[in-house]
């Protein structure tokens, strides 16, 4: 539903067929420059929601990527070829953001007016203390060669990350109606997931390459 906000042309100006995406005609395959203000969801013809169907995202992406692929426009004017290159980049960026739950949630928060990760760097409650303790536990388990303990920590972290992402999923679609305070809390939640991701990469990293701490 690319024309949902009323600013996009609904029909191709060349063949009058429906536009399935704001940048491609489904009939004559003409390509159009990105209208200003088109978001990643609109570009891919998807509903603006956190709960996207992954298969649909992929299908939309494939169809669109094929339509705007610069290879189809090698015989076209330099201007059209350049447009195809720009659109391809935009389509790739859109799918990269929308296929990753964390980036998708971040993007929905941005569309709702933020705050950005630079503006709010805090995390919920005592998470930093928790992260500090987990880091120490990972380090102790590693230096003691306790792979079972590392595995236990990895499972705990993975569960914490999963729980945080569930909260994100439950709140993401009400962001447009959320207060600034609620959006700040949402940003903190996203920040917490970044810490979990960092810890998870730490717990699974090859010990030979883990010389990143101060400790002997």
């Amino acid at each position: 539903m690319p024309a949902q906000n009323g600013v996009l042309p609904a029909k191709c100006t060349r063949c009058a067929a429906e536009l399935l995406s704001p940048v491609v005609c489904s009939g004559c395959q003409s390509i159009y420059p990105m209208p200003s203000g088109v978001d990643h969801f609109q570009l891919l013809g998807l509903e603006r929601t956190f709960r996207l169907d992954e298969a649909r995202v992929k299908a939309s992406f494939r169809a669109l990527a094929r339509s705007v692929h610069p290879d189809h426009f090698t015989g076209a004017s330099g201007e059209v070829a350049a447009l195809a290159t720009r659109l391809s980049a935009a389509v790739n960026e859109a799918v990269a953001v929308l296929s990753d739950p964390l980036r998708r949630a971040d993007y929905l928060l941005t569309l709702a007016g933020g705050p950005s990760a630079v503006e709010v760097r805090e995390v919920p409650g005592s998470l930093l203390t928790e992260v500090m303790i987990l880091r120490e536990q990972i380090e102790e388990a590693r230096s003691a060669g306790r792979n079972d303990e590392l595995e236990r920590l990895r499972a705990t972290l993975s569960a914490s990350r999963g729980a945080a992402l569930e909260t994100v999923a439950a709140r993401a679609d009400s962001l447009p109606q959320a207060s600034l305070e609620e959006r700040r809390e949402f940003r903190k939640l996203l920040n917490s997931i970044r810490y979990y991701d960092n810890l998870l990469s730490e717990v699974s990293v090859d010990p030979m390459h883990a010389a990143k701490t101060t400790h002997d």
Partner: protein
Amino acid sequence: MAYSDKIIDHYQNPRNVGSLDGNARNVGTGIVGAPECGDVMKLQIQVDEQDRIVDAKFKTFGCGSAIASSSLATEWVKGRTLDEALQIKNTDIVQELALPPVKIHCSVLAEDAVRAAIADVKQKKEQASPRPAGAAAR
């Protein structure tokens, strides 16, 4: 990227690594983090009766610049009063260690950790010795 000798020295021989008793009334703990890189830094200070910092310890999980920044910060706060320690600016750390621009946030983290530790110990002291209510009216 070329790092200064001072960063490398603090990274390879970090000063004051460790922990103080976080429950002690005269110990302040600051834990700060940088969500973008996942670094966490714990900096603790111990003060005497005159609010002078007599000991400082840190534990940092992060890059070399974050470790060097917190190591330097613990060296600098020792011997200062709390109010003097508040004067330490991240830009001083940047200058001393010649931190590259992409690592300036590490010095910000160290300054934040010092401030958080100071705030923590100040709060503890106020709770331990509340001014008598109505003292001003006497």
